């Protein structure tokens, strides 16, 4: 195992609002057996308020950056959950495993920003799904990006909105899945946070060695991609369109942590379209 000196130069702290342009559904285990429960509830905190888990945000950002940087090709995709042994001979069923990009390129913008898993992995080496062993010990670095859970800005749910919703912070949308032969309707209901709601989100990017603003730029690209995609579930049929607003980027270094000085407000944007590096 090689050793590479890693020196923390500081932290970018990014605060922003996530505004929902369409209803958001980040699902959780059902409570439909409760009185008044819905079939597909959204995740809520201990106070019953919906929030966006950091894991959902980070996973989506990573996935988009894997596509954007053309990382989902043979020799760059590993199984994080391998298909069951019985399934390996069956190409269709072999897809039951979970795959993501992980690699041993120490300059990989995706792995360096979002992190690598320790240990041994099975890397997919061709389009048939054949695998080889991959060990990432030599390139393991601390994860740079930390994504906080995003809390609901309660003031964004106006009285007018509340008067027209099923619950204090969410609405229930009824949909039908139609049979393409008989046109019979199969109803389903989904709870969602309504369009117009805002969440307070916060991110930290650790700056190591000579990173400078390399990973900050990558991160902002990921946010732009997310605005053009969707967050949460059912995004291909309308849900989860979001916009980042009031983005403030600060930098904290030794002076902040040791000297107690104020951090430096580096950038401030009303929206992502203003970001031009």
């Amino acid at each position, binding site marked *: 195992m090689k050793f590479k000196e890693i020196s923390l130069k500081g932290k970018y702290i990014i605060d922003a609002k996530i505004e929902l342009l369409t209803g958001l559904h980040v699902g959780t285990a059902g409570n439909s057996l409760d009185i008044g429960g819905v079939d597909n509830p959204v995740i809520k905190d201990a106070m019953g308020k919906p929030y966006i888990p950091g894991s959902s945000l980070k996973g989506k950002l990573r996935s988009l950056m894997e596509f954007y940087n*053309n990382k989902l090709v043979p020799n760059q995709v590993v199984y994080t959950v391998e298909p069951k042994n019985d399934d390996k001979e069956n190409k269709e069923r072999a897809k039951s495993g979970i795959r993501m990009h992980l690699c041993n390129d120490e300059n990989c913008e995706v792995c360096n920003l979002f992190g690598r898993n320790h240990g041994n992995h099975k890397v997919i080496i061709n389009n048939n799904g054949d695998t080889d062993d991959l060990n990432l010990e030599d390139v393991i670095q601390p994860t740079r990006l930390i994504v906080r859970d995003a809390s609901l800005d309660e003031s964004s749910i106006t009285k007018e909105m509340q008067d027209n919703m099923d619950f204090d912070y969410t609405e229930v949308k009824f949909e039908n899945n139609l*049979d393409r032969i008989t046109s019979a309707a199969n109803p389903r209901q989904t709870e969602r946070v309504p369009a117009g709601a805002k969440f307070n989100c916060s991110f930290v990017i650790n700056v190591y060695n000579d990173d400078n603003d390399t990973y900050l730029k990558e991160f902002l690209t990921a946010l732009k991609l997310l605005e053009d995609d969707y967050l949460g579930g059912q995004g291909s049929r309308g849900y989860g369109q979001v916009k980042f607003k009031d983005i403030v980027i600060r930098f904290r270094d030794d002076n902040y942590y040791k000297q107690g000085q104020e951090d430096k407000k580096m950038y401030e944007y009303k929206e992502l379209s203003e970001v031009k590096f």
Partner: protein
Amino acid sequence: MNFKIYDAEIKILSPTTVTSGFDIGNFEVVFENNKIHVIDIMKMIKENKKAVGLIETFDFYNNKADFTRSLKECGIDYRKYIKYSIDAQNISYNRSSKVKEIIKTAGRPYIPGSSIKGALRSSLSRALNEESRYIESLNKKINEKKDYEAKHYGKKMDILKICDDIAEKELFKDSYYSPFRLLKIADTDTKEYEDLSISEIKILNICNDKVKWFKWGGNQDNINMGVSIHTETFKIGTKLNSRFSMGFIDYYKNNDIEQIETDCVLDFAEKIRKDMNDYIKCELDFYKKYGLEEIIKFYNNLLGMKLKENEFIIQLGFSTGYKPKSVIKNLDDDFIGKLINAGAKNIKGMFPKTRRLAVYNNKPTYPIGWIKVTLKERV
């Protein structure tokens, strides 16, 4: 890597609605001065003690009971408790009618991406010309039902909602590998109540090859006697904005790892234009046969539209009938027999023999749910 994304402008061509699944009760509605006023009953109860007494004694289950008149008799001015008002011109409204509510998010009307996508998906599935696979799927389900019911005497198997399962899986695999997950359609923006009107819908029913109008207990020759359905709809000419995205479709097109068949969603606007053209011609033949002039005029106008490469028209939402939702184009006796075997009820002879039409001044004027989509690719 390319990220394909389009801004979509949706223009309403005929009264269009996706309903919320709820009805606005007749006691919540006042029809006056060519407007429907929806009353906030809860607000009225909270602010007016007389209203509490009225609510306790009023017979809400009696269709003939007139809540508006009772309000007046109690000296309650409903205008103080209007939640919203909607244009209701050139329609007839009976005080016993409920109004079907348009879907709203936090109180504002819109068109869900799921409804737009559902309509596109049906059209793109039809464009594949794989009708025989769907028929085969239907056959297998009918046999499954027969076997089950023979083994379990007295029990019924409901397959109507899953007749397409086998064909859909053969064509599009599991949902994770379906090409339709690459076509992402956002909910539209929300609109104001001024963009809505109340539509009166009548059900055209062909009986013995003659135009009749549906009424419980017996179809009617006179349109005025037919049952009216009232619903909140977007006004003709209203424009809504959505976003269509194909995302990283190039990756799926060029990469064998995922093995998603992208072909059926590529060039979707062109495929939908062709499919809709065929559908409109069939509908025109139907209406010409029964001489519904205004509807013929409407469909002729649709056929005459010079649609550009980035434009298409499609029919979606409430009261659009069987045809836009089904992939089966050849509705012959053999197919209708199979539908009956699958458990479909009230089907005899001609199918579908009903159409729902928006009626103005007692004249059938528009089929419901036609929109025009214009796409603008983001660079």
